[in-house]
């Protein structure tokens, strides 16, 4: 137990130093956050432009799709904020810096996790939260405690899901040296896909993201349950909205196992 407390303590010390270093260059930090905020505005603008032409998309109105979008943006930004070290892991491998991590008396997982804390992602995250707030106001929805809980669970466990994907992508660097960008389909692509109701996608895509890689459960299903939607979300039982913790933790455990396997089989890049 002491070990866990010590590790958590260490994590906060380390990311504290990352945060301070990013705040050193104030102008560039502010412009990074602003750029990140605006970059995510483009996706929102697309949504608004499309709803300038139609009132309903896949059975969802503008407020409801905005809620999906806000959830997706917040979740993904949170994952990138925390898991940035795994996102940029290829560099650690290529430069041989990973060898340095191995000789330190702290777990490598903790070290990689704490080697980056991308504050600029707060830009996208704050934008997602603002959209959520405005969308719920627009819907004039007053959330019951269970709805709050379901959505919070979706955001936190969704972030865990994305971090797991980043972790598997990072693990692939042990063999491929360069980061396998094919995973971007699942991370960036997943984020994009979940910004719209699953109902607009064809059967094979739905099946893949419900049964095989259960990403639909970290966003679309809980949102559908909270909003009382029909369609694919309505076809699933109510408890499916409570699945994010189970899905998130299971996927994370699996990703951790893959990571540990990778660390054990790591052979230095040399040079």
């Amino acid at each position, binding site marked *: 137990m002491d070990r866990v407390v010590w590790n958590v303590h260490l994590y906060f010390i380390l990311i504290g130093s990352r945060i301070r270093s990013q705040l050193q*260059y104030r*102008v*560039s930090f*502010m*412009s*990074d*956050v*602003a*750029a990140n905020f*605006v*970059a995510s505005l*483009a*996706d929102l*603008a*697309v949504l608004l*432009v*499309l709803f*300038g*032409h*139609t*009132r*309903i*998309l*896949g059975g969802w109105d503008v407020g409801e799709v905005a809620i999906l979008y806000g959830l997706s943006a917040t979740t993904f930004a949170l994952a990138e904020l925390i898991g940035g070290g795994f996102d940029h892991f290829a560099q650690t491998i290529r430069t041989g810096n990973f060898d340095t991590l191995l000789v330190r008396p702290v777990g490598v997982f903790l070290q990689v996790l704490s080697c980056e804390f991308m504050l600029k992602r707060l830009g996208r995250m704050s934008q997602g939260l603002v959209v959520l707030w405005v969308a719920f106001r627009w819907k004039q929805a007053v959330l019951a405690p269970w709805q709050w809980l379901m959505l919070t669970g979706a955001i936190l466990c969704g972030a865990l899901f994305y971090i797991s994907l980043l972790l598997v992508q990072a693990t692939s660097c042990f063999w*491929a040296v*360069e980061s*396998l*960008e*094919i995973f*971007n*389909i699942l991370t*960036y*692509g997943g984020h*994009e*896909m979940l910004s*719209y109701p699953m109902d*607009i*996608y*064809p059967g094979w*895509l739905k099946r893949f993201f419900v049964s095989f890689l259960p990403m639909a459960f970290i966003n679309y299903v809980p949102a559908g349950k909270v909003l009382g939607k029909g369609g694919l979300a309505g076809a699933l039982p109510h408890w499916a909205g409570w699945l994010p913790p189970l899905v998130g933790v299971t996927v994370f455990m699996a990703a951790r196992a893959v990571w540990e396997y990778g660390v054990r089989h790591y052979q230095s890049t040399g040079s």
Partner: protein
Amino acid sequence: MRTSSGAFTRTGWVTVRAYYELGVTSFRRHMTYRTAALAGLATNFFFGILRVYMFTAVLESGAPFAAYTHGQILAYTGWTQALMATLIVYGWFELMHTVKSGEVVGDLCRPMNYFWFWQVKDLGRAAQATLVRAVPLLVGYRLMFPVYLPGTAIVWLAFVASLITALFMSFAWRFAVSTISFWMLDARGVMSLAYMVSWFLSGFFVPVDVFPAWAIGIVKYTPFPYMLHAPLQVVMGRLAGTALLHAMAVQVCWLTVLWLLCSVLLRLGLRRLVIQGG
């Protein structure tokens, strides 16, 4: 080596040859990143599929949507995803990095025009991107979806001419944005903002003609729709005859303006440039 050939003197040929070799080298250098290209292709394709269903849902709702047909919307998503890498709409930071590392000194000392040095390298890169990213994506797309394709050779020719002009415009814009790094130590954030604006207003995310009317009223006076939207209108068969000629003339005008802008910014920027590194 030719000593003289018509109007060209020996030095003339050597210069042309140098630019040519630079472009080819850049092409080859980019060709070596095969797995990255494949991953990029797969990602572009997946996003393309998502966008197909997004736009299809809008058309299925019965909205007129600026009179786009299903085939045209399929073509729109296909071409935008295909040309994404060719035009690097999402941003170009190579020049900025050379300012940061100090390499810019070496580049400025070359017996070459600094703008054309980068332009030729970019052409090599664009050729690679078109070959390994755009063409396979479009072929796959066409096999999967009933994409609208123009029927006559003249439309294809007009499209290619318009697209090449757009490519030059896009580079000039990226070069102009990159000169910000002569003034700022860390220009990345500001540059990303500028790229984001051009990315959206060039009609990459949604076609410019489905923007709200007030937005179209402003955007049409900027060069951005001519960097992507205009050529795509040609290949979707939505721009023809005198309107097409007019659009192409405007493209050329904007290209000239952007070139002038680049030369002014470069001149001013070089006065402010502080060399980094040692």
